[in-house]
């Protein structure tokens, strides 16, 4: 039954771009990018219980890695994606080391500080030659390979979708195996887990690294899709919207990444028409509603509905 | 006999979904002393918590004629019920004197509070010496004295004590029991006492109950339990 759901979802996702405009396709590409990020953040926060309010920073590192490699080194776009992932893995792992000593509110605070400081770091003069300073870097949209009869937007959609499917598969393998159990055990019963031989420090900083890797890959793909990176697009609110995404989708679920991504991609678009402030007002309200009423997120609600339907 | 000060009827109580107490009934007379005895884990602490509304409970509890089974702890306390909790409940970062002030925080009569503070220092001269010391740095025995003094600062009608002799030297235990007797005689403060030292407790109390796995297995005049060989052997171990 689950398998059927997965196959239907993939079929819908593959067929989708042929029924919608290039612009809508671009929006869905962005949504898939967010799904990758949310997957990574959820591994860390949902499964492993390490709160991060600063994943926008890793997203930025991924985006800038891709942009700089293309702009200054002529690296083809597809090769920047794994590169961004690796660079972010390194950053995440390193950040995860001091974070080991922080719990709950303190980790939230440290990562929040990271989110707030990110745009300023990106604007630093000494790096301006590479980062383009306040102006940022413009990226050229890639053409489809082998003369495929696809628009640039559709090609990028499929490219992103393929990466996302790979990453979902990897995450699925991760969480249902030994490592996944260790992650959850460290979240729920840290002392017991350590006593049973789980190397807490290693697992937690590795999960931090993996989470950053996902986010960095998302950042690279996102940069390629919007063809542009600039410091001010990576502020506190980007990090917060990722948190909104995992809460809405459902903490410690994989499918939740999809619902969360659709939410943070499309709800602001709709709400923007009411007022510039509306998307965030809605985000805030939705966060409260989910925490008070449905802490399991959409994924949980859907599984309940599904369970009811089956009787 | 007049109406009892505290009257508990078919009380069920517990933590989370499971009940620890099952249909417990007992009374403390006006100006009387009741003791509840029982083995470790019998539910004595749970019983005192339930009376004070600190945990989920069901049943009837009347205090000074008022139904308190659905009242909040702070309101029950304000009716004049002071509780010396299991583990002393010291405010470790406040000074000893501030701990006493907290005990009297619901009172408005400044003069009376000041006088009672002096009275406590009279009961426990050690506390006067240490009044400005951080309470967390007091010895275990001193903290126990502080807890009792803090409870008395409320000028309660009923004093509820959870193992007041815990961790104290025998000499000090004697003092504390003497003080309980004094406040009971001179101020007609009712006392509900949970105690491991059954012998001392039965000497002090007028009424006693024996609790076993959450149920009252026997109860009556303290003298009766004291003299009953079989009960003494089976439950009280002396």
């Amino acid at each position, binding site marked *: 039954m689950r398998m059927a759901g997965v196959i239907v979802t993939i079929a819908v996702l593959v067929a989708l771009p042929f029924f919608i405009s290039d612009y809508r396709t671009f929006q869905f590409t962005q949504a898939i990018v967010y799904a990758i990020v949310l997957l990574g953040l959820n591994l860390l926060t949902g499964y492993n219980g390490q709160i991060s309010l600063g994943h926008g920073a890793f997203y930025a590192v991924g985006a800038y890695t891709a942009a700089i490699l293309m702009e200054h080194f002529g690296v083809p776009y597809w090769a920047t994606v794994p590169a961004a992932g690796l660079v972010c893995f390194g950053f995440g792992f390193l950040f995860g080391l001091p974070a080991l000593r922080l719990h709950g*509110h*303190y980790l939230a605070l*440290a990562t929040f500080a990271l989110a*707030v400081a990110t745009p*300023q770091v990106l604007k630093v003069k000494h790096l301006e030659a590479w980062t383009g300073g306040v102006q940022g870097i413009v990226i050229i949209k890639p053409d489809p390979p082998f003369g495929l009869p696809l628009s640039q937007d559709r090609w990028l959609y499929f490219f992103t979708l393929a990466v996302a499917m790979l990453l979902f598969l990897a995450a699925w393998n991760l969480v249902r195996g030994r490592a996944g159990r260790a992650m959850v055990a460290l979240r729920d019963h840290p002392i017991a887990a350590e006593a049973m031989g789980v190397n807490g420090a290693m697992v937690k900083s590795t999960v931090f690294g993996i989470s950053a890797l996902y986010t960095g890959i998302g950042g690279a793909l996102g940069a390629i899709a919007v063809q542009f990176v600039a410091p001010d697009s990576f502020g506190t609110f980007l990090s917060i919207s990722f948190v909104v995404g995992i809460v809405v989708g459902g903490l410690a679920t994989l499918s939740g990444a999809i619902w969360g991504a659709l939410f943070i991609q499309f709800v602001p678009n709709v709400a923007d028409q009411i007022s510039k402030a509306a998307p965030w007002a809605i985000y805030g309200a939705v966060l409260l509603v989910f925490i008070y009423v449905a802490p399991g997120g959409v994924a949980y609600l859907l599984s309940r509905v599904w369970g009811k339907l089956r009787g | 006999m007049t109406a009892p000060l505290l009257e508990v009827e078919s009380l069920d109580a517990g933590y989370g979904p499971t009940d620890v107490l099952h249909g417990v009934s007992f009374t403390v007379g006006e100006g009387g002393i009741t003791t509840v005895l029982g083995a470790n884990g019998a539910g004595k602490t749970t019983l005192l918590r339930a009376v004070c509304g600190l945990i989920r409970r069901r049943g009837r509890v009347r205090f000074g004629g008022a139904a308190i089974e659905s009242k909040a702890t702070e309101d029950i*306390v304000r009716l004049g019920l002071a509780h010396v909790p299991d583990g002393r409940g010291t405010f470790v970062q406040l000074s000893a004197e501030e701990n006493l002030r907290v005990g009297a*925080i619901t009172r408005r009569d400044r003069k009376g509070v000041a006088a009672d503070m002096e009275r406590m220092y009279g009961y426990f001269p050690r506390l006067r010496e240490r009044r400005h010391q951080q309470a967390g740095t007091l010895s275990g025995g001193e903290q126990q004295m502080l807890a009792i003094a803090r409870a008395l600062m409320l000028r309660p009608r009923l004093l509820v004590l959870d193992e007041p002799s815990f961790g104290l030297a025998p000499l000090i235990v004697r003092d504390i029991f003497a003080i309980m007797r004094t406040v009971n005689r001179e101020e007609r403060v009712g006392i509900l006492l949970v105690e491991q030292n059954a012998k001392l407790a039965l000497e002090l109390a007028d009424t006693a109950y024996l609790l076993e796995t959450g149920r009252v297995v026997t109860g009556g005049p303290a003298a009766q339990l004291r003299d009953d060989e079989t009960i003494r052997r089976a439950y009280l171990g002396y």
Partner: protein
Amino acid sequence: MEAFLHQILSGLATGGIYAAIALSLVMIYQATHHINFAQGEMAMFSTYLAWMMIDAGLPYWVAFAGTVALSFVLGVLIERIVIRPVEHAPVLSVVIVFIALLVILNSLAGWIFSYTIKTFPSPFTWEGSQNGYLSPHELGTIGVTLLVLAALFLFFRFTSLGLAMRAAAQNPVSSRLAGIRVGWMLALGWGLAAAIGAIAGMMIAPVVYLDPNMMAGVMLYAFAAALLGGIDNPLGAVVGGFVVGVVENLAGAYVVGTELKLTVALALIIGVLVFRPTGLFGRRYVTRV
């Protein structure tokens, strides 16, 4: 040398603001062991309320008092309505509720007052004092911070209510057994925090101008200040605030330049958290299992 001295003194002035916000963080931390991520936005929103009152023609100090009082009430209401339901929830839920509060206040301010930057008056504008090291506003800010600290000290030290609040924060169960309404004490803590934040907001607004995002940077310094001083220690937080203010100014002027100042705060926060989690004057271990 003169320039150096000037940097230190004006660092003390901004430090006063960090100190005030750090103090409000400590109020809430002491009561609930939560770090209020929305503290800055609460202060920002309060400052808009003050702006509204001044704009409506009220004299500055009337608006000031009105804002402090109104912020106090709003703080209490926020605790009762928004925070109460998650009092015993896991940390993650609490953090998310704070984040929700942050974005709601931010967008509400943008919605009601628009995102255009507004000027905000300073009450300290007497003539002829411009030639000293400190501007009148800087001097006033330091004075106000010290006054707030003194008032808080007196309140907590010498009033029954202050004692009850301290007791409730330390040992809620024992406090209830003494008849203290602990829930309300927490709400009062929030009220105080909101009121102090409002004062800080009104002091910083003449400098950074009024807009919904005015507090982002300030908050980071305030966090650093609170952590540096020990997040459960009011006096420490104030000292931390002044220290951070001076360090920020000196680092900005002589070391990293203005464009990396926030990174200094980030480094301070992570450094303190990792190497000295109790802060310079903290008493307890911050990480509790």
